[in-house]
């Protein structure tokens, strides 16, 4: 049964997914959920495809009301989650009844939370993705009173033991710290910075308030480019660290313009981009040098953990009769006849 979510307090929230991977060849940034691990986990916890549209809630409190019974999961930065006034767990599936209000309050420790709904929500698509693009003005930025269509309803799941959480799926949650360590590999232009490149690894940087989904600006001792030759515009990867001015280090994130003419000093690993997604203004960052094979191994270890979660979720959901897979309940009458 389809239903809707009515946004009561939008705060700073959008409907997004893992990103517009076909965008860069057309000059559009990839965009999508900044903390990809948390976004994937939220979708997996609700039985969705990893790439299903979900809500990204940044920094500010958020409230919505569901018109039908639904199943949700909230991941990402630590916060206070309540459903119909009851305190609920993050990083677990949560049953929501028709008419109840879901509230995400006091996002602390990190910056971005993810809310997925079983069956997902409807959103316009461009080049295969619903991820908002602020430059061309595409996507669903939520406003107070906005309605999102949901495609599936899940009857309330009964918890026979009073006050115990419904599920305990045992995912290792990411750590959130105000003194994050971010792993990077040497960039293709590291030599242009000479000995000053080492400053990147010995300096504690502070996240500036001017940071956003396009890039984080970090204050601290800056490596300096040794030459001043003009650089032809070229494609720059998400995670590229540049020194465009004498004031700040720029770390590009998923909203980055696809081409630029600054030398790339280092590149943040895929795994550590999730850490940066959660860095709040005022938090400190230190960089640690790693290698591409090591970064790839860490990313794959995280994906394996998500695969394990998916298999646990699908077993539990099958037993409860949630989702498209047949559950034991459907076979029970035949067995009894």
């Amino acid at each position: 049964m389809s239903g809707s979510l009515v946004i009561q307090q939008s705060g700073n929230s959008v409907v997004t997914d893992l990103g517009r991977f076909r965008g860069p060849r057309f000059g559009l940034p990839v965009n999508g959920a900044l903390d990809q691990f948390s976004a994937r986990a939220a979708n997996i916890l609700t039985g969705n495809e990893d790439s299903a549209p979900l809500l990204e809630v940044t920094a500010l409190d958020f409230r919505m009301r569901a018109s039908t019974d639904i199943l949700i999961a909230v991941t990402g930065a630590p916060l206070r989650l309540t459903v119909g006034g009851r305190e609920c767990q993050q990083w677990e599936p949560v049953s929501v009844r028709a008419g109840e209000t879901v509230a995400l309050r006091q996002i602390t420790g990190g910056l971005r939370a993810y809310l997925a709904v079983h069956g997902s929500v409807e959103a316009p698509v461009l080049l295969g993705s619903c991820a908002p693009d602020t430059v061309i003005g595409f996507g669903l930025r939520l406003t107070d009173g906005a309605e999102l269509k949901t495609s599936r309803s899940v009857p309330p799941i009964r918890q026979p033991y009073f006050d115990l959480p419904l599920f305990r799926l045992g995912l290792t949650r990411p750590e959130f710290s105000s003194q994050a360590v971010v792993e990077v590999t040497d960039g293709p232009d590291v030599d242009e910075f000479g000995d000053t490149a080492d400053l990147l690894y010995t300096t504690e940087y502070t996240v500036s308030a001017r940071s956003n989904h396009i890039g984080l600006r970090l204050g601290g001792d800056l490596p300096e480019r040794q030459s001043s030759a003009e650089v032809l515009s070229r494609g720059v990867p998400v995670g590229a660290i540049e020194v465009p001015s004498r004031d700040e280090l720029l770390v590009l994130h998923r909203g980055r313009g696809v081409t630029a003419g600054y030398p790339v000093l280092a590149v943040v690993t895929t795994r550590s981009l999730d850490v940066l997604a959660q860095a709040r203004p005022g938090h400190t960052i230190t960089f640690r040098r790693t290698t591409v094979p090591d970064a790839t191994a860490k990313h794959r270890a995280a994906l394996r953990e998500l695969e394990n979660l998916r298999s646990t979720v699908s077993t539990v959901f099958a037993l409860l009769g949630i989702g498209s897979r047949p559950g034991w309940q459907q076979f029970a009458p035949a067995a009894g006849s």
Partner: protein
Amino acid sequence: MPATTTPTPVEVFESGDAALRVVASSPNREANWSTVHALAGWLEAAGADGVHGAVPTYDSLLVEFDPGVTSARQVRAFVLLGMRQLDFIGAPARAPREFSVPVVYGGEYGPDLERVAEHEQLPVEEIIALHTAKSYVIRCLGAPAGSPMMDGPDFPLPVPRLKDPRLSVPAGAVAVAGRQAVIAPAMAPGGWCVIGQTPLAVLDVTSEPLVPYVPGDLLRFHQIRAEEFASYAGRKLEAAR
């Protein structure tokens, strides 16, 4: 893009765990450009597992991939395979299309026209004449949103960027900087000198691809009067041939 006989050699550089930078660094700039665009075309057509796509510019190509599915090592091997294929078959030829772009120069449409004229020590009319004098090859698609990056007009001097970039430049802005020319498909901040504006819609987010041109196509500007601007309302940029 024009056929090339032999692609120039390339070097492949690590660019994090999810991208590689491929650089053609021969002394022949035109051949470098053809090579990276031909290689991008080959990579797109081959569609290897886990390769998201390729962003070619002037002498370099960024290849992005999913490190959960493939790896920098595998993609590097794939790129080198593509180069051997191109050596063998040559870069495919494609007849360029030509786009004709009406522009209102100066005034509110081109607030930096006089600044550019002053810098070049030429009359405003001569700047417009030089800008409309030839067809430009679209070299690559840039930020924001698929901007057609072109080698600029034959001005005597490179055009300096604005000291204070504008927070907002309207869609259709026709701008120059250094030795380059561009049209802004979408409203965005910008530090280039805006000398005019086209009334045509360049970006169409309801169609795929979002912009009508590809690298290698030709683009030519022609001057219209400010009174004519409104008569083009709602029209899209389309290939003339």
